């Protein structure tokens, strides 16, 4: 079982993701440069946070044309697991691997803090080890995390159980006050219809050790290992 961390120019959470995955899973991890076209031998990929290609034009917009993304699409079609965190989520929506788009935060401010996520489904390879409804303590750090999709898409996400996480208050309520960026339905993370692609704005790669304030991020990486072990 091997993990890859895709490195776009301007990524800055690549080493965090590498270290987090290696530490939590104990599995081999390799960096994958954005010019790479072969993903042979990888079972799961992480698209890390940062500002890919400076995030010029739109967040994640230039990254979708990088050679590696063509291979990532084929990798997804083959059933490989892909988790996009923060800028990685933005790249996945721009690439059409996940529906919707990430807009500027409703309050115009970059928000960097710990918050509560409610796990909305256990029926994904990324959340199989987390009971539905469980609250996770995981931080965000972004200026463009306002999840947007048209009404039809939002209904489809609900109907297909594709919403993985929502921003909630300490009691688990998806209130407007608990929504840090204006995301539709307090959505913090979604999976694709095939359930092998997860995009989330919060950072499990910044919450995998008690010294960082939380270990809850481990649950996501551990779920991926479980899914790949039983695949």
């Amino acid at each position, binding site marked *: 079982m091997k993990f890859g961390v895709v490195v776009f120019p301007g990524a800055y959470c690549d080493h965090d993701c590498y270290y987090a995955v290696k530490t939590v899973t104990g599995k081999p991890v390799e960096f994958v440069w954005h010019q790479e076209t072969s993903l042979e031998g990888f079972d799961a990929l992480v698209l890390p946070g940062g500002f890919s290609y400076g995030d010029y034009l*739109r967040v994640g917009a230039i990254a979708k044309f990088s050679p590696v993304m063509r291979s990532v699409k084929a990798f997804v079609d083959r059933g490989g697991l892909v988790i996009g965190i923060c800028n990685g989520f933005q790249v996945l929506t721009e690439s059409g691997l996940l529906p919707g788009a990430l807009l500027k935060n409703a309050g115009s401010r970059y928000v960097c803090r710990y918050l509560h996520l409610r796990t909305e489904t256990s029926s994904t390879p990324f959340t199989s080890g987390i009971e539905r409804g469980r609250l996770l303590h995981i931080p965000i750090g972004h200026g463009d995390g306002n999840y947007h999709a048209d009404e039809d898409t939002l209904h489809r996400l609900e109907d297909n159980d594709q919403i993985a996480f929502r921003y909630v208050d300490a009691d688990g309520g998806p209130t407007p006050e608990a929504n840090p960026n204006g995301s539709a339905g307090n959505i913090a993370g979604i999976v694709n219809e095939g359930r092998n692609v997860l995009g989330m704005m919060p950072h499990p790669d910044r919450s995998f050790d008690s010294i960082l304030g939380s270990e809850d991020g481990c649950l996501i990486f551990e779920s991926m290992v479980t899914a790949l072990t039983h695949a």
Partner: protein
Amino acid sequence: MQIKVIVTLKPTVLDPQGMTIQRNLETAGISGVNDVRQGKYFDIEVSDDVAEADRRALVERLAKDVLTNPVIENYQIVWD
């Protein structure tokens, strides 16, 4: 060949940048502005090497697939 492409957010999409500009116009001594929507403007020069028959398709593709995210934006091409 010079072309301009104007990209705007769809009317249903929130524009915090435009709202921030609009909200602070009073302090700049400008009143009477109800709404500001911020967009993008691109000046594009297409090489003369591209056959004239292919230019339209090339610019359409550039505007649609690269400069615009159809989930949140609309585009308008201004042909000189």
